[in-house]
């Protein structure tokens, strides 16, 4: 079949020849997950559209009174670093877990580092929300602020979901080992996590930096 000559089969890092059937099965399941991710992207896109239409009314309080550029930079750094560490986890999965007997220590380590970085992101984001509400910018204040809280909050909820998902995977790996099922779950989770960082690029560029210009 043409499978064997194709270099890559699905989005995200592919498992490679050593993983046998897992690799081929990943094609349909991870590709299907990618289709779902794209529909999620449309959802985010609509939140962006609503936000964009309220931007001309962004005043009193607006971005200049409410945003903390330093904190946004920290959140960006946390999320970008967590993207790299999740990549390291999937790289470990590919290179060391073709056989089930491999030690899971390194894989679990990278996943937990990713969770820690994700928690750092969430901590700064929630602090920002609290500070924003205290500075007179709760979501009920204006259409602009409703759209802002919904958009950034939706992303924050996704991150929270991704963190819980990752912890479930870690627990599953520790209890049952890196079997067929957890491999495919990990590949999907990695696609999800990278996707969230992509959405964050749009948020920090358009909402925060664009708002402060």
């Amino acid at each position: 079949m043409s499978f064997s000559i194709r270099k890559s089969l699905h989005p995200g890092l592919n498992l490679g020849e050593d993983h046998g059937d897992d690799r081929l099965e990943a094609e349909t399941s991870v590709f299907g997950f990618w289709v779902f991710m794209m529909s999620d992207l449309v959802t985010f896109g609509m939140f962006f559209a609503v936000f964009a239409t309220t931007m001309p009314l962004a005043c009193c309080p607006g971005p200049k009174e409410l945003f903390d550029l330093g904190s946004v930079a920290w959140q960006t750094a946390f999320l970008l670093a967590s993207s790299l560490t999740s990549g390291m986890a999937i790289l470990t999965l590919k290179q060391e877990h073709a056989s089930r007997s491999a030690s899971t220590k390194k894989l679990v380590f990278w996943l937990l580092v990713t969770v820690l970085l994700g928690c750092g992101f969430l901590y700064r984001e929630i602090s920002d929300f609290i500070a924003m509400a205290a500075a007179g910018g709760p979501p009920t204040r204006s259409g602009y602020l409703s759209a802002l809280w919904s958009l950034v909050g939706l992303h924050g909820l996704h991150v929270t979901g991704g963190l819980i998902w990752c912890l479930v995977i870690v627990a599953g790996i520790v209890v049952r080992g890196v079997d067929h099922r957890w491999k495919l779950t990990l590949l999907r989770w990695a696609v999800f996590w990278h996707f969230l960082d992509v959405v964050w690029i749009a948020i920090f560029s358009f909402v925060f930096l664009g708002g402060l210009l």
Partner: protein
Amino acid sequence: MENNKEFRHYLIGFVLATLLTVIPFTLVATVGGKIAFFALILSAILQLIVHLRYFLHLSFKGQQREDLQLVLFTGLILLIMIGGSVWVLGDLYNRM
């Protein structure tokens, strides 16, 4: 070594993404104005491509698989829906 190559791939992506983050943040914080505006848009688009290429491993050459087409189609849908919304409501706003 194949393993080192893949590791380097991630590292290159990370360095590029970091650069493309630092540039707009610095420009917005210091210079501002039109230069920062265009740099912001350009860095965001470039960083998007860096993430798709180095972290999500989408290939931009050939028609190896459907995931790139899916991204492009979703992009088209987004363009129509976001562009349309902003156009219509921006027009209303200007007439008010």
